[in-house]
């Protein structure tokens, strides 16, 4: 991948060669041009968005969504995609539109649409074998499963985490991690005692002591999934939770930082101290002693609005969990696999001790959790168990994804492109005060977000972007988040920036 970009900084200015021939002024320093992995993967990637329908969703999308809706819930459908004609960073739809995609299937496409390396994997004999002979993995693993894990999912493991348990989605990755936490903590509580007859009998009636009264603590605005355990930990929005029975689990405040960070150093530190103190207070006073099995936290609260906290906050959180013998689960379902400019976002924190468990899904295509302490594997077999226990076909994909990321240095590249985007947005947003604010995600790869002045304006922004050929997602109440794939290069960034500025101009009127 030795290609260099044909465009780049010219004496501190960024020339965006795209739809609207727009020039961004940039005060940043000149840097070396990026080589474009996208060009090498996708020689025929569109050079810019194509919008042919007068609105998006266009007539074909609307018609197909309606038809689909008769038998399948399509209430949340944006438009009907044409994956056969999607390429790299561009998603095609049923009306022939081609949109630059910085939402990427809710942050789950790793290497662009129709990535040739993944197509090769999908065509391989091992993949065909994994698809047609899906094993009950825990009982009948295949010869190569150990190798597939060690060359892929495990090769990518966060530092200090040599074990993995695989699952099928972000929600079930978190729930299996919760199970590991409950089983571990109850075993610890029991010590050398055997499981009592009372425990065995009461659990069959869903009652303590056999059914645990322990809890998982999560943070305000956290999102951890939508099954019943994960949903009890989710605190993002009512619509995610309404009408569902939930466990009476505690939640702690998550810092609400003020931006720009450099202007609010003291206040933000105090805010983090406040949250940490309240957390200690909850642990020691509001919840009965030794009841919290684990604390789950996202490195950046994504669905909840892209809320960040500092390394100081996370290190202190780690210290608190160690002090109270609570397990720390870091939910990297959305932040993991490179987008933050590190392979795992929590690596930004340089924790003195690794987390106890790290969960993953989305961009890795395979889901599950890593752990370091072998005791997090239950002493008795068949306790962490189900029919499939993961999916070898997804483990194969994860291996290829990891290998491509490493080979092409995509984490570093994402960090660089992210800085480029951030700097340009910072410069741009200074012109649209009152419309956009709280730009965040500096030095956090492409994991960037900002707020609009109101939820309505945010929604309008997203819809205008789409009509100009940019597929972009929201989060929280009034935020917009960038979640491009890992082959989003500078040329894509320029097109995106240009569309964003166009739309902001329209909003400003």
């Amino acid at each position, binding site marked *: 991948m030795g290609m260099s970009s044909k465009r780049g900084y010219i004496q501190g200015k960024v020339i965006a060669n795209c739809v609207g021939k727009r020039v961004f002024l940039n005060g940043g320093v000149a840097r070396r041009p990026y080589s474009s992995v996208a060009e090498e993967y996708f020689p025929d990637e569109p050079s810019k968005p194509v919008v042919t329908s007068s609105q998006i969703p266009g007539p074909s999308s609307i018609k*197909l969504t309606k038809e689909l809706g008769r*038998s*399948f*819930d*399509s*209430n*949340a*459908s*944006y438009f*009907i*995609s*044409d*994956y*056969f004609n999607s390429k790299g960073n561009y998603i095609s739809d049923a009306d022939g539109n081609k949109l630059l995609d910085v939402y990427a299937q*809710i942050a*789950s496409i790793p290497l662009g649409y129709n990535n040739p390396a*993944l*197509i090769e994997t999908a065509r391989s004999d091992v993949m*065909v074998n994994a698809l*047609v*002979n*899906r*094993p009950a993995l825990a*009982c*009948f*693993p*295949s*010869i190569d499963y*150990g190798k597939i894990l060690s060359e892929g999912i*495990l090769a990518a493991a966060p530092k200090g985490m*040599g074990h*993995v348990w695989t699952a*099928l*989605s*972000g929600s079930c990755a978190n729930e299996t991690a919760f*199970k590991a936490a409950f089983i571990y903590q*109850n075993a610890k509580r029991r010590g050398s005692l055997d499981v009592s007859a009372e*425990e065995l009998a009461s659990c069959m*009636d*869903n009652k303590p002591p*056999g*059914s645990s009264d322990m809890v998982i603590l999560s943070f305000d605005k956290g999102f951890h*999934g*939508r099954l*019943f*355990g994960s949903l009890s930990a989710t*605190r993002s929005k*009512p*619509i*995610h*939770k309404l*009408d569902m*029975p*939930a466990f009476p689990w505690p939640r702690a405040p998550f810092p609400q930082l003020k931006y720009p960070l450099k202007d609010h150093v003291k206040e933000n530190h105090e805010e983090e101290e406040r949250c940490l103190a309240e957390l200690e207070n909850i642990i020691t006073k509001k919840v009965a002693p030794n009841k919290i099995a684990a604390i789950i936290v996202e490195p950046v609260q994504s669905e909840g609005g892209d809320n960040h906290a500092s390394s100081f906050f996370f290190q202190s959180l780690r210290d608190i969990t160690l002090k109270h013998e609570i397990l720390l689960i870091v939910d990297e379902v959305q932040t993991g696999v490179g987008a933050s400019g590190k392979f795992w976002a929590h690596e930004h924190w340089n924790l003195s001790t690794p987390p106890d468990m790290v969960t993953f899904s989305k961009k890795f*295509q395979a889901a599950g959790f890593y752990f370091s302490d072998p005791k997090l594997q239950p002493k008795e*077999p068949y*306790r962490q168990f*189900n*029919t499939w226990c993961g999916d070898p*076909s997804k483990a194969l994909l994860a291996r290829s994804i990891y290998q491509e990321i490493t080979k092409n240095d995509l984490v570093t590249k994402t960090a660089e492109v992210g800085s480029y985007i951030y700097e340009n947005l910072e410069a741009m947003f200074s012109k649209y005060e009152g419309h956009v604010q709280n730009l965040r995600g500096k030095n956090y790869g492409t994991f960037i977000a900002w707020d609009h002045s109101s939820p309505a304006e945010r929604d309008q922004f997203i819809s205008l972007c789409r009509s100009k050929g940019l597929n972009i997602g929201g989060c929280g109440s009034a935020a917009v988040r960038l979640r491009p794939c890992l082959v989003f290069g500078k040329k894509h960034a320029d097109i995106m920036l240009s569309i964003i500025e166009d739309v902001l101009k329209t909003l400003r009127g």
Partner: protein
Amino acid sequence: MSSGNYFTNEPKEPVVKSETVPGPQSSAGIKALGQVTDSRPVYFIADYEKSVGNYIADVDGNVYLDVYAQIASNPLGYNNPALIETAKSDKMIRAIVDRPALGNFPGADTAEIIQGLLDMAPKGQDKVWSGLSGADANELAFKAAFMWYQGKKRGFTKGFNEEELKSVMSNSAPGSPELAILSFERAFHGRLFASGSATRSKPIHKLDLPAFKWPKAEFPSYKYPLDKYEAENKKEDERCLAIVDDILKSWSIPVAGVLIEPIQSEGGDNHASKEFFQGLRDLTLKHGTLMIVDEVQTGVGATGKMWCHEHFDLSPAPDIVTFSKKFQSAGYFFHDPEIMPAQAYRQFNTWCGDPARMILAGAIGKEIAKNNLVQRTKEVGQYMYSKLEALSSKYPKYIKNLRGKDRGTFIAWSLESGEARDKFLKDLKTKGVNMGGCAESSVRLRPTLVFEEKHVDILIQKIDQLLASY
């Protein structure tokens, strides 16, 4: 259609090369895998490249006749050529490489892929929601039931009030209401937190996990043989239905759904009569609660009907039917439009299923229909049942309570104790048969849908040889 048409090179009989099972190579593999993940439940390390049809090969060169079939989840035999073709299709490649967030960005081919599932839907069902595993399918169904139950009270298209919006964020009522799913003693519905709350099979499946305070009713325990104890068993049905009626009337938490397996599988292959299921259907209607049938293990042909509950002539059809395993894709079928939430993002998650697996399900459905495999399974099951009946009079100690008559190949029996059962299954492996157990002292047959008379003959011969040596 015979399995010979699919598998020209299927082995004629099992081959056992290693002295023990697992053999030395498997044991080494199990140890290595154990360094990074839990490998203690591993039976042996399989060689899927060499597995064909009803035979699974392992790394020690053993080839077993497989009547466990990946815990009842392999539909059409190992390396089925029709599924290989599907796996190599452009559609499949696309589905694997560009996995969509199906709720937000369905593809132009999504409707067609879904139609593949709907073509095999149980009678009376014309809608589907997709998930990823049996536990996931059931929990998604619970979510649908809870939204429906509250929607019925609130008005399906009405918004939420302030108190609901506020309380839900602290996991309290009324936003997070206390609502229950009623399940049955010895039932198995999965191992996540809500499915785990409905599961009542064994303590090891439930111990140390928080659970919802949901009720359980009793599942009929019949006396066998059924034709001898008709009156007693009818009374048992009535007794169990009365318990359900009572719980639905008086449980402290409103019951939004009644969840039941057509045959309790992990719990020991416990059967109940058509009349029991019809009575249960009536009770759900009477009390305004949904009937959710868990066909994760019984579904997709093995019982001699595509869906086992079709044996029961339920009217109206159940409200929700969940599936996974042999369909390779998971989810639930339903028909009432009100079971689909009126607001977006309520039944939602990142992937909302997996088109790659749904395409496979469609192909499985097509093969089943084309080759009449449900009918074939019914015939093979009858043949196998009569052979086993004969064996059971020869070895009454080892084949007790034979069950699954007229339920295709979905057959089970009990031994005298857990130890006797475990020994039987272990010894049978050394004869080249891979069979699974269930509950405390039972064994269950869960072959693929291309299991035929010739495979039955081998199975019977191996069992006979083994039991003769006891």
